[in-house]
């Protein structure tokens, strides 16, 4: 009984994780410029994958340790790649959406150069 | 295990394979047809990453592992290194719109 409940909970977590990933995909399509798209892509996929991992962990408790490691790796690598990409995108001066209100980094590097 | 669950499991893998196959063919077409070389290399990397998941679905985890380890960074890196060194000789913009 308990095991069946845990299974159900795991499947629900899996479902919620997929919903977040879907939202990330939607954000990727709808957001106006690169930086906003990076935001949408990184946050949602990180949480979505973490939820998926915990869901699978509930479905198959034997795999828990390895799933935990995958989650840790993703927590460290995902924001790092997002940051490196954002830095590169800013350096090559990609067009930002006209909605952008302020860009302190461009101001500062403009002064330096 | 009931037959419904079994059916769903096999449909799930088939559906995944179908999705991946479609994505691979599309990415390969991008790699061939797009004007900018960096995008072509990136698309080839995407093809090999998807190939790795497809290998896993084909029950070949060893091959999937090799493809993932090599396709994720090494090949892409080799291409981009040479591209960075020959960039002066070609007049290609790094973005394509």
């Amino acid at each position, binding site marked *: 009984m308990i095991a069946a409940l845990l299974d159900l909970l795991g499947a629900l977590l899996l479902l919620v994780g997929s919903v977040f990933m879907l*939202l990330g995909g939607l954000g990727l399509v709808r957001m106006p410029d690169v*930086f906003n798209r990076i*935001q949408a892509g990184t946050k949602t996929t990180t949480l979505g994958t973490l939820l998926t991992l915990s869901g699978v962990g509930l479905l198959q408790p034997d795999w828990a340790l390895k799933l935990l490691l995958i989650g840790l790796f993703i927590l460290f690598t995902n924001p790092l790649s997002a940051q490196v990409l954002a830095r590169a995108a800013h350096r090559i001066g990609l067009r930002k959406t006209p909605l952008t*209100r*302020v*860009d302190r980094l461009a101001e500062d590097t403009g002064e330096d150069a | 295990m009931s037959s419904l669950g079994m059916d769903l499991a096999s449909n799930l893998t088939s559906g995944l394979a179908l999705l991946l196959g479609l994505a691979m063919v599309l990415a390969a077409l991008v790699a061939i047809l797009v004007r900018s070389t960096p995008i072509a290399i990136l698309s080839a990397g995407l093809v090999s990453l998807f190939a790795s998941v497809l290998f896993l679905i084909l029950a070949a985890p060893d091959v999937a592992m090799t493809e993932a380890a090599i396709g994720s960074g090494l090949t892409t890196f080799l291409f981009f290194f040479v591209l960075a060194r020959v960039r002066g000789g070609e007049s290609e913009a790094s973005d394509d719109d």
Partner: protein
Amino acid sequence: MGSVTTLHELSGLTMVPLLAILLLFWVALNASLSWQVLSVGITVSLLIGWLFRRGLSPLTELRATPASYRAGLGFVWHFLRELVRSNLNLARVVLSPDLPVNPGIVKVRTRLQSPMGRLLLANAITLTPGTLTVELQDEWLYVHWVQVESADIDAATARIVAGFERYLEVMYG
């Protein structure tokens, strides 16, 4: 390896946290505690630790005080809560038809000195509501903000950085 090697780095004590983390990961990977796994794990960890004397681990610069461990737990809890909040926030933005974004890149200040603490701070900021670290230079962080509330340095610092810095300062000093 490092051009500047301080006495502290030479003493070999700095390697201990890295070795501990490596061994921990090794045991988790193998999911076993048999003497075979442990002996190979110790060999491999020593080898990697020797090759990468400048290697870091989340434990490397962690202060070994109870307060610091408590702050670590608080950091993890705060981070997870913020992660969920950021996703809900993003879901609201993405699902609303008129896409209410108001982006900008603001400049904030951090007091942290330790590389590991700064990395954790930047990663945490990237995963929290509406913010994305673009560049980290000296004491300045440049953060892309989906909905800019204030372009003022101090106000933005209080809004974005302070929540995590409180914990990280106790942990890494």
